[in-house]
């Protein structure tokens, strides 16, 4: 594949293996594909809907105890004392540990509400919860930072040793002054997005069981090997002593890369109590302590020439990732401003730290840039799509926005768009909007193993995990394609560190890492099978083909054996071979565009999204239904970002007021619009992941649709009734 671009990994980065040689052409994806790209049903769907699938939450072990963490109610405090005695005496309590040392100045300060302080293990979950409340912790409250504006002010208390604000490096290109000189119009505005949390349906947590100095941990994680390494490092034991199992997990969105403190606490409680311990967090702990998407804001000045060419972009941006964490994001996003400058500040406040959240940085950069683009297009009186097309990077297989904008516009009915501000009478205004996305991906380095036994069963083992994306189905499709078998004939075994190593599921790398390894392992297995079967058919192994459940001779299909018959030849010596990812079967970087159709009630401020259309590529489409499902999920997530989710902190106490699913709003079934997906197949590029790109641009498309409907620009998310009505009240509607 000519257009697969390879480059050495950054120097010093761990987890990067040296690049293997390009894959032998025999491994390449077949030109005509029986299974790949078809809408294969999700292999483990029935297990999930019937409850047979066992998530970490469902694991029980003989004699298992339940863990519970005592957390700081304050955003910043010094722990004066921890008294475990009452908790230790409480019914059912088997272990109680302090996670802080009041006497040690390095270990006695909590930096956010929800920071870990102590922990309990008891015989029932209820006993653990009750006992945790009996741990007496004396706090000395310290000054805290809650509002970003407050933290940025020069008279803010110095909460962070290296400063409350961290100034990033300035980025510059071209000649800014010249750029603004060429501009016929300049837009100068401030845009912003808010903090949301991951809200994984299954909360974070683990079940830990010791056998001597060996630990088995069932963990809700998106990286079993990462979790193994984390346990080993955090507990100071060899990695070889740790086994991590994750058969099913209920979402991570980037927040489940490591065992985290609760993993170490769980292991320690299990050791102290000499019994397996399950420690799963509750919803409040999730909101407070397991990550979030940083906020983003930018004061932007942008220029556009009379013909609609972007000329200049000058931005000061900032955001908060919580207590001491970064809040960067790409800006401007995708569109080409030849002359630009950008400075950025990370602002620290006393909340839990950010973690990667589905396309880190991109939704923020997309919202700010796309709303700005809409304002600029209006200044030059250009159609927003034509305006975008004029200012995109050059087209390429990884940059297909022009084609997708045109294709999507036709499918969506863009020609029916009215100018900014719905002229229809009455309070219900409708509008449409568009936004684009990109993402890298490009997994590598996976291993896989394939066993075929004389009973005809095909097992593919790989130490990957299913984040909920349908990894098993994808593996079965790839293996089924190689063997000419239906996906149901393949038994994918994943989610166990006993299997050959594969990367963590992050950065949309799983498909591109796993599929080539499975392809190579299964082609190797088929080759081995052909060797063993060819003599019985009296031909050379190379003359054999596998398709439609048979092994047959290429030029003489009547000379054949059924799969079962062929495998019988194996007798007591099964086939057991490995495969390793090689370049040539996968690629990197996707492009996509999204359209949204909304209605806004200008008397109540309520926005309803009626329809979203996504045009999205992901290289070779392996498993069509699960790929589409990623697009649905990404769009729904971004809809939540646009309209509903918002981490609300009390500005005075710094405590979160909505750490639940009641006032932390999430779309229900009836709030989810019609979603149409046009998946663009690019078989010549090989496999690329699709987990992240679809969640980048929906919020911006919705914001632009709202602007198109009501005729005024709401420059920050979420687009709540409060925000819409306040914006309308400030700015009389254009007629």
């Amino acid at each position: 594949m000519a257009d697969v671009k390879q480059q050495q990994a950054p120097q010093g980065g761990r987890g990067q293996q040296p690049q293997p040689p390009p894959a032998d052409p025999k491994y390449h994806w077949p030109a005509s594909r029986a299974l790949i790209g078809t809408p294969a049903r999700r292999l483990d769907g029935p297990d999930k809907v019937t409850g047979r699938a066992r998530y970490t939450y469902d694991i029980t072990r003989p004699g298992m105890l339940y863990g519970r963490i005592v957390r700081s109610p304050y955003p910043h405090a010094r722990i004066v004392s921890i008294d475990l005695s009452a908790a230790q005496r409480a019914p059912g309590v088997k272990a109680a540990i302090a996670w802080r040392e009041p006497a040690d100045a390095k270990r006695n300060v909590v930096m956010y509400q929800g920071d870990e302080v102590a922990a309990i293990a008891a015989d029932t979950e209820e006993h653990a919860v009750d006992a945790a409340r009996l741990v007496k912790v004396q706090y000395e409250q310290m000054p805290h930072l809650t509002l970003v504006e407050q933290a940025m002010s020069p008279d803010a208390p110095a909460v962070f040793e290296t400063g409350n604000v961290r100034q990033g490096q300035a980025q510059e290109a071209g000649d800014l002054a010249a750029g603004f000189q060429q501009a016929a119009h300049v837009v100068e505005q401030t845009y912003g997005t808010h903090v949301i949390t991951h809200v994984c349906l299954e909360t974070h947590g683990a079940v830990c069981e010791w056998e001597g100095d060996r630990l088995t941990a069932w963990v809700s994680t998106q990286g079993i090997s990462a979790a193994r390494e984390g346990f080993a490092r955090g507990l100071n034991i060899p990695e070889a002593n740790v086994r991590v199992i994750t058969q099913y997990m209920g979402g991570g969105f980037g927040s489940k890369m490591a065992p985290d403190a609760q993993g170490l606490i769980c292991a320690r409680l299990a050791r102290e109590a000499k019994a397996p311990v399950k420690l799963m967090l509750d919803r409040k702990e999730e909101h407070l302590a397991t990550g979030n998407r940083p906020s983003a804001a930018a004061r932007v000045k942008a220029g556009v020439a009379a013909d609609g060419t972007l000329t200049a972009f000058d931005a000061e941006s900032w955001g908060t990732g919580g207590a001491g964490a970064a809040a960067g994001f790409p800006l401007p996003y995708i569109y080409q401003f030849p002359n630009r400058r950008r400075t950025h500040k990370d602002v620290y406040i006393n909340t839990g730290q950010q973690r990667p959240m589905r396309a880190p940085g991109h939704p923020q950069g997309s919202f700010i840039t796309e709303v700005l683009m809409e304002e600029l297009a209006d200044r030059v009186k250009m159609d927003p799509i034509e305006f975008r097309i004029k200012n995109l990077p050059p087209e390429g297989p990884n940059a297909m926005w022009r084609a997708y904008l045109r294709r999507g516009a036709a499918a969506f009915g863009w020609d029916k768009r009215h100018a900014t501000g719905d002229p229809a009478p009455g309070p219900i205004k409708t509008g449409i909007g568009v936004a684009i996305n990109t993402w890298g991906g490009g997994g590598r380095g996976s291993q896989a193993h394939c066993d075929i036994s004389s009973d005809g069963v095909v097992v593919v083992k790989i130490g990957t995990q299913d984040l909920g994306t349908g990894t098993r189905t994808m593996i079965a499709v790839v293996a089924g394609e190689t063997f000419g078998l239906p996906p149901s004939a393949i038994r994918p075994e994943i989610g166990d560190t006993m299997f050959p190593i594969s990367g963590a599921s992050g950065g949309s790398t799983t498909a591109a890492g796993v599929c080539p390894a499975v392809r190579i392992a299964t082609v190797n297995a088929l080759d081995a099978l052909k060797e063993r079967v060819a003599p019985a058919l009296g031909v050379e192994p190379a003359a054999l083909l596998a398709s439609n459940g048979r092994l047959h001779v290429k030029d003489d299909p009547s000379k054949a054996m059924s799969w079962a018959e062929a495998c019988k030849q194996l007798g007591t010596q099964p086939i057991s071979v490995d495969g390793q990812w090689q370049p040539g079967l996968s690629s990197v970087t996707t492009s996509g565009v999204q359209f949204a159709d909304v209605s806004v009630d200008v008397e109540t401020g309520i926005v309803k999204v009626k329809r979203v259309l996504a045009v999205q590529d992901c290289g070779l489409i392996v498993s069509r239904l699960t790929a589409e499902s990623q697009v649905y999920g990404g769009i729904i997530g971004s809809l939540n970002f646009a309209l509903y989710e918002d981490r609300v902190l009390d500005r005075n106490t710094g405590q979160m007021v909505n750490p639940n699913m009641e006032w932390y709003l999430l779309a229900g079934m009836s709030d989810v619009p019609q979603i149409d997906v046009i998946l663009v197949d690019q078989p010549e590029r090989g496999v690329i992941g699709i987990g992240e790109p679809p969640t980048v641009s929906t919020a911006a498309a919705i914001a632009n649709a709202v602007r198109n409907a009501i005729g005024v620009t709401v420059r920050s998310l979420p687009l709540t009734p409060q925000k819409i009505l306040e914006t309308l009240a400030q700015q009389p509607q254009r007629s």
Partner: protein
Amino acid sequence: MEALTSPKITVGHHCLRLRTKSMYVAAVVDPDEATFYDRYEASAYWCGHTQAGFGPDGHPVRPDVCCGGRDCCRL
């Protein structure tokens, strides 16, 4: 993706216990991506020892501080 543009973590300069997502997620780099937007720093970091965003000394974990002079730093 953010892993591509994160400051490089170098053995010998940074603490061996410094952790970030890209260390576990193996990816191929697309040189073209740099033309779609400038580099930015969105990565979350944590300490392998504490498994938290704060080190054994209670301070935040970040590449610019998890190196050289920090007491807990292991080179």
